[in-house]
């Protein structure tokens, strides 16, 4: 699931080639949508956030210096966009007249029933710092190798490993406090009810 893009397609997209632009869009779409869904938290509409990320990325393709670094470049945009959306979502609850986006809101994705355990996991994840949250998602949910996570986040591999250990321990502790460990069978790692 490595994020790469053909440098020539980037050049063509910059020259106004719609097909090349769509190719860039297609390359980034699954990863961006996944990040926005898992890292946005319960108050952010992932499709709105993904739309903003991709529009920003395609409009600012000229700032991509090295096509090899497309992954970390677009991850940086995603991280900043999500921060903006999270701030907006936080403000929305204090500004009168602004409808608060909650689970089951307008987004078709949100309309999908989230399981009770999914909500609990999301709540636990929200309690972690952003740095730990993103490393857990990239490493354990998306199964990206340490090297790719390091590249996306712009960190040394050692830092990724140590941060992952800290994040995992904290996550397990918080999950245990929430009673989520009862859902996990240690021998198989499967989840049962």
């Amino acid at each position, binding site marked *: 699931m490595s994020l790469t893009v053909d440098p020539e397609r980037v050049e063509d997209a910059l020259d106004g080639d719609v097909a090349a*632009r*769509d190719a860039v*869009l*297609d390359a980034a*779409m*699954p990863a961006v*949508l*996944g990040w926005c*869904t*898992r890292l946005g938290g319960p108050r952010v509409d*992932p*499709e709105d956030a*993904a*739309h903003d990320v*991709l*529009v920003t990325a*395609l*409009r600012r393709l000229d700032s991509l210096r090295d096509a090899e670094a497309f992954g970390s470049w677009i991850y940086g945009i995603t991280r900043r966009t999500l921060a903006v959306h999270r701030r907006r979502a936080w403000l929305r609850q204090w500004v009168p007249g602004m409808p608060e986006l909650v689970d089951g809101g307008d987004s*078709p*994705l949100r309309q*999908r029933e*989230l*399981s009770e*355990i*999914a909500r609990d*996991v*999301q709540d*636990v*994840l929200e309690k972690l710092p952003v740095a730990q949250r993103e490393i*857990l*998602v990239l490493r*354990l*949910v998306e199964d990206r190798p340490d090297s790719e996570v390091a590249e996306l986040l712009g960190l040394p591999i050692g830092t990724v490993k140590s941060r992952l250990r800290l994040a*995992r*321990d904290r*996550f*397990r502790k918080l*999950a245990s406090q929430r009673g*989520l*460990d009862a*859902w*996990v069978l*240690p021998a198989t*790692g*499967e*989840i049962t009810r």
Partner: protein
Amino acid sequence: MSEHDLRRFGDETAPDGADVQHLRERLAEQRQADEQAAALLRELPSPDGYAELRVRSRVRATLRGPRPSRAPRWLAAAGAALLLIGLGLLLREDPPVQGTVASGTTEPLPGLQLAAAGVGQLGGTESAPRVDWTSGTLRVEVEPSAGLDVEVVTSEARVRVVGTVFRVERNGLGTQVGVTRGRVDVHCTDGTGHELGGGEDAICLPVTASGLLARARALQGLGEHSGAVEAARQGASKASEGPIATELQLVEAQALAGAGRRDEASLAVEQLLMGGAAHRKADALRLAIRLAGSEAPCSAIEPRLQTLSELGATAAELGRLADCVAPRDTIRARALLLRALDSKPDGEEKAALRRRLRALRR
């Protein structure tokens, strides 16, 4: 290094079986922890099968549209500053209001109701209206939510209120303020102040000579003679001469007489007559005669009755003067009685005058 040495080195550095086992257990624990965490994390929501399609079409639609212009930050800051200045000017602008407050109920401004029975003038601004109340009763109702800073001003008082119902009555006694609801701050012109709550009232006394004269007369009319004396004396201290001073002296003397303080009243009226009493001489003379009593000897009252007859005496006064004159000058006494009859006295008095006239003819 010989083969023997290598073998020896290998034996010496070979891991202990227990250590290997411990390491394996730790690695297994870590893997298990990762699996457990991953198993939970995989429960996180993931995009549905159509999310990509929806986002893609939205992105394409956005990119087809015009690109939003990005104004420089300094421009945005300048715009915000201008907006703030404009807002400040807008807020500072407070149009003046003007009008007459006549009898009736009006709502000159939203949140301000005036129920008047008298005369006044509306001024000030839309946020801080001011009613200059001249006379009569004014009921003021200010909605607390209207944000108005209402002031009612009379010669005696300044009543400031933000949200309440109160009544201001200006009459001869002064300015009376009664609060129905809320709290008001009353500042009297004489320097006193009152904080009034619902059901409470206060009065601000006049401070000018004319105002105190009006108060003295009003109290006199209410039979409160002592209060009238006090008000008249206060007024006299502010008006040493002139028609108002004369009026105040007369009211003082009348009020003293009404309070039964005969000697003080006589002294006051004598002082008034010594000063000339100007346009109130007839009233002063009458009071002096009245204070002398009905049994007073003619020597005491005749000169005053004489002066009074020249100024315009009543039938009774002319009759009394005739009684004093008759022993020494019947013709003049008869002339006085005929003058008294000409002044059209009432039936009983007329009959009495005729009887006295007939007696003089005899």
